[in-house]
């Protein structure tokens, strides 16, 4: 198992390296000069060169990338800005704030959003899926199936605005979505994020209901479930210890991917609800041609997805001894 994890972590680092290099390359492929943006209206060639030098973009692209990479591992000396310790992701072009610090400030927001929503949709999605599987072919099953089909065809920017319009603006049932740190005021933290959680949950729940149902239905028809019944074990026992155990694997897989996506790809959600998380940071950094910030956010997002994938594989191995590795 540890060998497997080491191999996977190593692979993940390679992936992040490639992603950062591609981001770097793509950034310069866009015909947009970050120095021009800082230079303002009365820009002279001299000023431009100076700004270029200050931003560190006067070197050839590979050298810039190498400097950035070195900074991540051994830190980087920015001269007048002072020393940036490893892991150094550089300073924002736009506001000269350290990239790592900004990301760490925004991270709790995105994590609260993602995990809160995940808890809601796991409970409702898996619960409804279980009920549907037990009541196969009955009304509840059919209802859950069609509801989930409807839910999974919805999109956050659609449901989100509608929910905001009705529940916040019209009915006033929910507070305007906002983020308050949990440590500061748990009640505002909860009430501020409740609507985004529920909205995200509506969309994700559907998928989990369908998946849980189909996995359980499949597992319940497995031979070993029949054997367990033939041994005299009760229905409930067989359901949770045998069928559910088997159904868990694929659900965990999808959950891991979803969690990575929620954290890494929070752009639309955060824009919809005007919440200042990592996703908004990504949008802003693109708009401002803020290369260090964009790189930092991209690597973090990719890192989240890769990380949860490794976790999924590890959990899968714990669930299913057949794929447990030496």
């Amino acid at each position, binding site marked *: 198992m540890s060998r497997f994890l*080491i*191999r996977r972590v190593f692979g993940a680092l390679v992936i992040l390296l490639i992603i950062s290099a591609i981001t770097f390359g793509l950034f310069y492929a866009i015909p947009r000069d970050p120095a021009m943006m800082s230079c303002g209206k009365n820009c002279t060639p001299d000023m431009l060169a100076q700004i270029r030098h200050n931003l560190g973009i006067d070197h050839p692209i590979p050298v810039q990338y190498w400097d950035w990479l070195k900074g991540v591992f051994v830190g980087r000396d920015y001269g007048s800005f002072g020393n940036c310790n490893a892991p150094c992701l550089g300073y924002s072009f736009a506001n000269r704030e350290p990239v790592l610090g900004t990301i760490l400030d925004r991270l709790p927001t995105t994590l609260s959003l993602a995990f809160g929503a995940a808890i809601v949709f796991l409970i409702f999605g898996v619960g409804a899926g279980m009920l549907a599987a037990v009541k196969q072919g009955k009304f509840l099953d059919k209802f859950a199936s069609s509801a989930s089909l409807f839910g999974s065809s919805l999109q956050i920017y659609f449901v989100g605005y509608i929910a905001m319009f009705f529940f916040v603006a019209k009915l006033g049932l929910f507070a305007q979505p906002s983020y308050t740190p949990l440590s500061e005021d748990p009640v505002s933290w909860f009430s501020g994020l409740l609507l985004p959680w529920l909205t995200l949950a509506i969309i994700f729940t559907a998928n989990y209901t369908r998946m849980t149902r189909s996995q359980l239905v499949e597992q319940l028809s497995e031979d070993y479930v029949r054997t367990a019944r033939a041994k005299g074990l009760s229905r409930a026992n067989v359901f949770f210890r045998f069928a559910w155990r088997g159904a868990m694997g694929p659900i965990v897989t999808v959950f891991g991917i979803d969690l990575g996506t929620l954290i890494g790809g929070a752009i639309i959600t955060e824009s919809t609800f005007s919440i200042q998380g990592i996703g908004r940071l990504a949008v802003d950094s693109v708009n401002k041609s803020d290369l260090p910030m964009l790189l930092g956010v991209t690597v973090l997002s990719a890192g989240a997805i890769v990380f949860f994938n490794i976790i999924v594989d590890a959990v899968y191995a714990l669930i299913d001894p057949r794929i447990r590795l030496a």
Partner: protein
Amino acid sequence: MSNTNPLLDVTGLTKHFPVMGGFPFKRKIGAVQAVDGLDFQVAEGESLGLVGESGCGKSTTGRLITRLLEPTGGSIKYRGQDITHAGRKQLAPVRSEIQMIFQDPYASLNPRQTVGKIISGPMEINGINPPGGHEKRVRELLETVGLNPEHYNRFPHEFSGGQRQRIGVARALALEPKLIVADEPVSALDVSIQAQVVNLLQELQQDLGIAFVFIAHDLAVVRHFSQRVAVMYLGKIVEIADREDLYDNPRHPYTRALLSAVPEATADDIPARERIRLTGDVPSPLNPPSGCRFRTRCWKATEKCATEAPPLVQVAGNKEGHLTACHYPETHDTVPAPRLSKDVAA
């Protein structure tokens, strides 16, 4: 074997599947010796049976002959032409003469194609335009395999298991093959249907002069269908002979044990064969026993068996063409000392 030039000539055929592992970088750490040095010939119009238990390499052999797998070593000659490592172009003419029938009639037919399309597929791929067109030929083939030619436009799911296997046979016949490799063609079928398909294949062999490599685990079916039979164990042929010789005078202890394990549908109190119960399991082909691969389960094994692999030869007392790979071949009056399975439990 009337012809000195066999249709198919296999020498030293070997297939090792690499096993990857290791740390931190995966590399080849071993090999599954699925097939390890097979020698056999198939004459024109002859049926050679390949029998053995799961994991003996019989199916791999079938896939090597049809070149669905690339051999690791040895040579395969078809009508004198070496096809061991032949490329796509060189293989093309041979492929149409060597066809395959598979075990699972459900999985080996494309469910979205009509029977007509399935059977004419091989002709189209090989650019063969039979006189009268594809449809006429397909109808003939359907009739040959005992299906209604009017079912030309039906889909596989509209047929029963036995009928699907007949479709598979018709497809194999479409290119007028000289050799058919049949991998467990009847083992997924019900007993009564199995007999229908065996009879059909037998008619084809006799009427069309098609040679067969008939791969099966069922010794009785093989005895019924194949004029010559090779018994495989753990990637090697342990005995090969004409069927009368093999079934009536088995010389390899494994052949004998295998035959004695087959339950016969008779109500006689005295079994026709003395019971020999093999103990334990077939060893892993990843790390097969040294010397004779059967020695770990053989009641006759000695030191010699562990050090020296017995060659496949005509041992004393064998008829022409009856080859056995054993240092201590069975004779008719050898009384083996069978170890009962109970002994293991003790």
